[in-house]
């Protein structure tokens, strides 16, 4: 059975790549429309959807929200949650970590105590290296003089992450247990995962009060989707025999869930925890835009006063925290239970716990007498902000750098980007929709094409067509450029044994660096224009392309490369005819992620200065135009989904053809 179906798909893709009547029909229709427009005989309603046809979606949404918020009294509930339990928890962690004057009035915990305790945790989970990473991160943070702001961020993180975990877990269980929940949740998740983060922020502020509570809520919502996915995945993967063993042991339903399913899905659940933590950290930084204090807010303030060096240092702190949390939680995933020999005394069985507690207490007490152990003030810190500033300015003053960036700026702007943008804007809406449909049909087949058609039609009727096209133009340009950089880099790195690790580490770092930090160098190199915007996106989108190229090439089954060797293929032949085709489906995942990242980053790039949806979105943040905010966010989401569906469908078909599933 499997054989016939793959043959079907193979035949289908080959055919559609050559001459598929549907594809030709779509393209022909689009060209007819464009020709008609060029000749001036296209009816204007086919060029752009007329103003009066555009439904007042934003206003309608506003009315609905006003109704839900005020008339139904939802705001009282949400405010109650925000001011009650959530604020209470946030205050408690805030007190412990940076001494906000709230219950339990114990904090702030001295930095040395926290650093020591986490180092022990790191040692328990992953040996000396992990201990150094965990302890080192906190020591760096304290020495560089960012302890308080880092703890402000952490105090929200440690409240938000468990919430996101719990809610995601419950929803994941519900989706696994009940088909209808699954069917209900799936599309919502897809949209949530492509929605620009600005669209998470505004509703959070309106319903949950400005400040940490709104920040925490936005963070929680942002981090829930992967937890849901990992929970359902994990529960589905539990071996049927384990399930039957549970049933035969006479488990009730509740016992099945809590004693069999959840423990058996431990690995996936912990991977979910890892993702929750990473997303929480990313979002907690971004919530600076709605007034969350902490690393993100400080970073924004530093950028607002042109302190590159200090911004950079904050960026490093964020990266260190991200890498530390990532590695620790991954080590936790891999940590398997191990038995103690019989007769091991209890203190030896709990050596790590006791050691951690002991060090914590020792430093806590020391800090009461030695100020340095409790807190490091600004003047004592080791920040090198000014020196970094000087270095950056010196770099920019180099003649060669200037010549290169000036040429790039001129070439890309005048010869590539602006003509490309203008031609996309020139295409009539109707033809544009058909072209998108044709493209998605060619890539992904029928279903993605239908969705592409529907999504772009919705965008056409949203009233933000031109801005959507400009957004899309930026995304496409950036993705193409990053393909030119990322894929060769990945191919090069995959050739040797040690380069992949280095490049992947660089990728990790580039990706966890707070996204908006790239904006400033982009502007300083290229000025406020599209080149800077595209450059800032490219830094971000090259990462997944490189990563998945390496991954794809390295996971080609060894028998296949060996077979190629035995057939006498040269290195080059092997790369082009064996490895790359086999790696393509994996690379497509990277390509897809690059597009998703580009849609994410293009919104942030509004801070450079654009005329796209991001700029409008950023503008809504200041006000209370919730409806408009959501319409804009959905436009971004719909475009992203169109590509997501098409590319993922292609990758899946391709994997089936190659038998890689």
């Amino acid at each position, binding site marked *: 059975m499997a054989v016939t179906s793959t043959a079907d798909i193979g035949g289908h893709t080959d055919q559609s790549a050559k001459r598929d009547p549907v594809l030709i029909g779509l393209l022909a229709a689009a060209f007819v429309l464009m020709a008609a427009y060029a000749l001036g005989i296209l009816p204007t309603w086919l060029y752009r959807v007329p103003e009066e046809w555009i439904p007042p979606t934003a206003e309608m949404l506003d009315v609905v929200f006003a109704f839900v918020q005020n008339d139904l009294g939802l705001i*009282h509930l949400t405010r*109650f949650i925000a001011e009650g339990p959530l604020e209470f928890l946030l205050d408690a962690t805030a007190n412990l970590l940076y001494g*906000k*004057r709230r219950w339990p009035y114990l904090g702030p915990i001295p930095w040395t105590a926290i650093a020591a305790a986490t180092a022990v945790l790191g040692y328990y989970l992953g040996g000396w290296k992990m201990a150094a990473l965990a302890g080192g991160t906190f020591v760096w943070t304290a020495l560089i*003089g960012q302890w308080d702001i880092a703890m402000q961020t952490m105090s929200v993180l440690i409240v938000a992450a468990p919430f996101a975990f719990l809610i995601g877990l419950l929803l994941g269980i519900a989706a696994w247990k009940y088909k209808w929940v699954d069917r209900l949740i799936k599309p919502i998740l897809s949209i949530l995962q492509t929605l620009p983060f600005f669209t998470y922020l505004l509703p959070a*502020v309106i319903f949950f009060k*400005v*400040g940490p509570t709104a920040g925490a809520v936005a963070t929680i919502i942002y981090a829930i989707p992967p937890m849901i996915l990992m929970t359902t995945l994990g529960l589905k993967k539990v071996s049927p025999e384990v399930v039957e063993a549970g049933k035969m042991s006479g488990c009730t339903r509740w016992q099945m869930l809590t004693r069999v399913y959840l423990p058996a899905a431990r690995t996936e659940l912990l991977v979910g925890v890892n993702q929750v933590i990473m997303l929480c950290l990313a979002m907690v930084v971004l919530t*600076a*835009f*709605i*007034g*969350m*204090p902490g690393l993100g*807010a400080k970073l*924004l*303030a530093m*950028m*607002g*006063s*042109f*302190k*590159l060096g*200090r911004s950079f240092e904050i960026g490093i702190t964020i990266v260190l925290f991200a890498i530390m949390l990532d590695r620790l939680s991954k080590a936790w995933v891999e940590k398997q239970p191990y038995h103690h020999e019989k007769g091991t005394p209890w203190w030896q069985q709990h050596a790590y716990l006791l050691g951690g507690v002991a060090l914590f207490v020792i430093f806590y007490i020391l800090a009461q007498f030695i100020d340095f152990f409790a807190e490091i*003030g*600004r*003047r004592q810190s080791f*920040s090198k*902000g*000014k020196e970094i500033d000087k270095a950056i*300015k010196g770099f*920019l*003053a180099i003649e060669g750098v*200037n010549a290169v960036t*000036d040429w790039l*700026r*001129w070439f890309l*702007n*005048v010869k590539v980007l*602006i003509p490309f943008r203008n031609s996309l804007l020139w295409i009539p809406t109707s033809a544009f929709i058909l072209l998108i449909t044709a493209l998605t049909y060619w890539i992904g087949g029928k279903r993605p094409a239908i969705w592409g058609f529907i999504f772009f039609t919705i965008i056409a009727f949203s009233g933000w067509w031109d801005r959507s096209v400009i957004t899309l133009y930026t995304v496409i340009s950036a993705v193409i450029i990053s393909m030119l950089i990322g894929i060769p880099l990945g191919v090069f790195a995959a050739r040797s044994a040690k380069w992949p690790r280095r490049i992947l580490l660089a990728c990790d770092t580039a990706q966890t660096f707070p996204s908006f930090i790239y*904006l*400033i160098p982009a*502007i*300083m*190199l290229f*000025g*406020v*224009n599209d080149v800077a915007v595209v450059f800032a996106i490219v830094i971000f989108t090259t990462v997944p392309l490189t990563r998945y190229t390496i991954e794809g090439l390295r996971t080609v089954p060894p028998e296949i490369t060996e077979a190629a060797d035995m057939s006498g293929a040269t290195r080059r032949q092997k790369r082009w005819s064996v490895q790359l085709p086999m790696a393509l489906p994996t690379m497509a995942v990277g390509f897809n992620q690059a597009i998703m990242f580009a849609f994410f980053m293009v919104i942030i*790039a*509004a*801070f*450079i*200065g*654009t005329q796209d949806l991001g*700029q409008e979105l*950023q*503008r809504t*943040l*200041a*006000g209370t135009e919730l409806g408009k905010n959501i319409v804009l966010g959905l436009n971004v989401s719909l475009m992203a989904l169109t590509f997501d569906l098409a590319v993922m469908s292609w990758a899946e078909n391709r994997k089936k053809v190659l038998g890689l599933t």
Partner: protein
Amino acid sequence: MKKLTLLATVCSVAMMGAAASAKDSDDPIVIPIHNWSSQIVMSNVVGQMFEEMGLNVEFITTDSQAVYESVRLGDVALELEVWEGAFGASFREALKKGGLHDAGDHDAVTREDWWYPMWTKEACPGLPDWQALNACAAVFATAETGDKGRYLDGPVDWLKHGQERVEALGMDFVVVNAGSAAALWAEIGAAEANKTPVVVFNWTPNFAEAVWPGEFVEFPAWEDGCDTDPAVGPNPDALYDCGNPATGYLKKAAWDGMKDKWPSAYCTLTKISFTNPQIAEMAKLVDTDELEPEEAAEEWLAANRAVVDPWMAACSS
């Protein structure tokens, strides 16, 4: 749910009762801080003054436009820097909805307009006159603007009407909108490296004056109605054909409930009035001396007891 609302009502009534007596409430006074240094330090200075008066203070980072909505709802108690040009519109709108009020002006004045760093003058010696600027438009040309000059305006949503002014005065400039204040600084910072002439949107007081000495371009002087009546200004057929007011206000705003809840703090707030040099000094402590805002505020307070003590004394009954 009903019980809950009842409870809430009882509580709030009780709280009002407490507030009605002359003593200030023990609840923390929530002071908003934004993303520029002078405002952060000023907020810290005032916060420390309140703390000296025995009050509880808390800071919260908010958006500088959205903050007026928060003041109105009482989520935050006050706002210390209401700029005429930048936030006048949001402030007036919130004022209309009710819930907050004007708590008096600072001595300081604000100005925002086209601006250039000093090195630009070498390339275009006729500055700061706007006609001289227009005459050397080519100096400001870039790859994408052809032979026209490039003016980097503030973000579109600041509504600075740079485009309208270029058209009204027939200038050879292309207006490009930056996406954020940070983008403006980055442009100036990049230009500084090899002293490229630039003209950008800027305002005072802010930290930039200390970092990059510069001047505002002198446009035809502001007259009332320049933005509403085409007849006003040199071009009889266009709006925005003059410069922005050279002396805009810098206000304080307060939540209506503040007066009753923290009477003495409110009284102090109305007395507070900082001058341009004082504000510049606050910004400098953070921006140039690299102090944390709290430390900068402490330092500034210590050096300026004579300024602040009378404000506090006037209100401690």
